[in-house]
């Protein structure tokens, strides 16, 4: 468990990106003399990931999460730095390295569109040197875990997005990879399909001790799968550690929903100097520091006539959303 399966030191990546001004003039200028800027999308990244870990990469759009995943799986050459994934230099794409990893992208698909998923599975099995009887066993087991036995013989184009994503997962896991790179795997899926996918990934990780690197904009994916998160802001790592520690660190507040007995109490409460988050007639939500809970509650109970009171953590989406745009956590 202690073995580092991914090691990255001082990794940087820059791209030449062209920009275009709007309008005909801008278009013509862009055609004849393209202005390109060299943009450093990853800056001095250092990280270590242990075998069996599930790590969530968090960041706003364009922060560099997908670029890291693509460098780790060998699709993109890094501009600077050292890296080793499963003991290999990823961008050399050695056959044994590729047999160790898989990449699943929520918005791209590899299954043959007009044929049932089974045909793509057998093709992938042949590519990964898996014989037919072994492939059958693996397909049976994975399809059972993913609950898509019935859909294996229906053309991919006729499957729902959720069913297709499950089939994509099966195609990507048929070679039993040790490292899974998942780039927004639940994108566009409904709540049940998202939950099933997360459940599957948890079981897969438990059974195979596979390492999972995940990016997602659905916080539920991160909170239910990842104990460790890496926050990225404009190409730099701003936090690398446990998710619960991050939440405690960045959210030292609690929300208190107070239901007052009368409108008068509600009005007085709203004028008494608390930070009001929400107000709806007799219901008022205030935000207070965690270390002042006891004092504040005493004050509210003694001063106002209240009907009920709830203490809540602010939603994780809200907390994470706030840190994604911060340079330091």
């Amino acid at each position, binding site marked *: 468990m202690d073995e580092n399966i991914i090691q990255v030191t001082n990794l940087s990546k820059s*791209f030449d990106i062209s920009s275009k001004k709007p309008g005909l003039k801008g278009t013509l200028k862009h055609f004849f003399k393209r202005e390109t800027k060299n943009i450093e999308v990853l800056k001095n990244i250092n990280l270590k990931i242990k075998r069996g870990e599930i790590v969530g990469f968090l960041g706003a759009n364009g922060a560099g999460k*997908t670029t890291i995943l*693509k460098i780790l*799986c*060998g*699709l*993109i*050459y890094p501009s600077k730095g050292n890296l080793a994934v499963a003991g290999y230099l990823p961008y050399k*794409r050695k*056959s*044994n390295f*590729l*047999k160790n*990893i*898989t*990449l699943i*992208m929520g*918005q*791209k*698909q*590899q299954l*043959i569109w*007009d*044929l049932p998923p089974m*045909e*793509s599975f*057998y*093709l*992938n099995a*042949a*590519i*990964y*040197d898996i014989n037919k009887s072994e492939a059958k066993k693996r397909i049976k087991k994975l399809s059972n875990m993913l609950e898509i036995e019935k859909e294996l013989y229906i*053309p991919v184009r006729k499957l729902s997005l959720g069913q297709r994503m499950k089939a994509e997962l099966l195609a990507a896991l048929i070679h039993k990879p040790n490292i899974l790179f998942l*780039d*927004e795997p639940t994108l566009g899926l409904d709540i049940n399909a998202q939950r099933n996918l997360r459940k599957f990934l948890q079981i897969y990780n438990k059974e195979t001790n596979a390492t999972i690197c995940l990016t997602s904009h659905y916080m539920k994916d991160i909170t239910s799968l990842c104990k460790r998160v890496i926050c990225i802001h404009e190409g730099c790592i701003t936090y690398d550690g446990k998710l619960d520690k991050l939440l405690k660190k960045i959210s030292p507040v609690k929300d208190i929903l107070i239901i007052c007995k009368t409108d008068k109490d509600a009005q007085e409460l709203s004028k008494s100097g608390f930070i009001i988050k929400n107000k709806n007639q007799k219901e008022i939500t205030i935000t207070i520091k965690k270390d002042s809970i006891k004092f504040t509650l005493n004050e509210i109970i003694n001063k106002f006539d209240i009907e009920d009171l709830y203490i809540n953590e602010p939603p994780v989406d809200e907390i994470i959303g706030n840190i994604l745009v911060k340079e330091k956590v």
Partner: protein
Amino acid sequence: MNTKKYMKIYSLFLYTSIATELEYKTNVIIDFVTAILSLVGSLFLLTIFFQNTDKIGGWNFEQALVIQGIYTILNGVTNTWFNPNLTEIVKHIREGTLDFVLLKPIDSQFFISLKKLAPSGILEIILGFALLFYCISINKININLWFLFLSFTTLFCSIVILYSLWFLISTTTIWFVKTWNATEVLRSFLYLGRFPLNSFSLSLRIFFSIFIPIAFITTIPSEVFLGLAGLWKILLELVVSGIFFIVSRRFWLFALKYYTSASS
């Protein structure tokens, strides 16, 4: 390279391609009819050219039919393999699905060049060979093993040259993203390959021998078929096809270093 593994994978490529095509029966029938009409149209055009003259560029009608036969075979190969696969490279790069190809433990050039197959092109290949067979009788060609070996070798070389040219152009997509037009221009030049090289002016002959090697793609194989080519031309064809293939391969491997994948 593990030949057995690649043969097995190619057999699966064949199967999945045919199964995919057969999902759309009408399309297959239309493609077959188009292939037949295309050949009929080309033959009709050729007869019009020879209506008022016996020779064009030193080639009589019976000999020009050989070029037409070779062109039909090459067009069949283009429609069977190059068109469905090599035009997809542009799509793979634009949409970022090349990621899946590059992450498979298999040669990426093999995968993207041979994954798909359009069966309708095979009919064109058969029609082309049928036309060549007819040409054997009208041109009174003696068939022997040496003749067959040389003919098939030069034909294979022309396929390699055409493939390499197309692949080279498609590879530039890694930098330029959209290169549909360039491959269309190549197809148009191939269209010109239905006529003997000598029927063009000297400057065009030089152009078609050096820059777009139409001479090597259709004319030399036709000369070999008719017993008109010297050994040096056959050797040159071999060397040129080898160089083209190696350059296309090296260029692909070099270009992959610049692949940035599409954004998510």
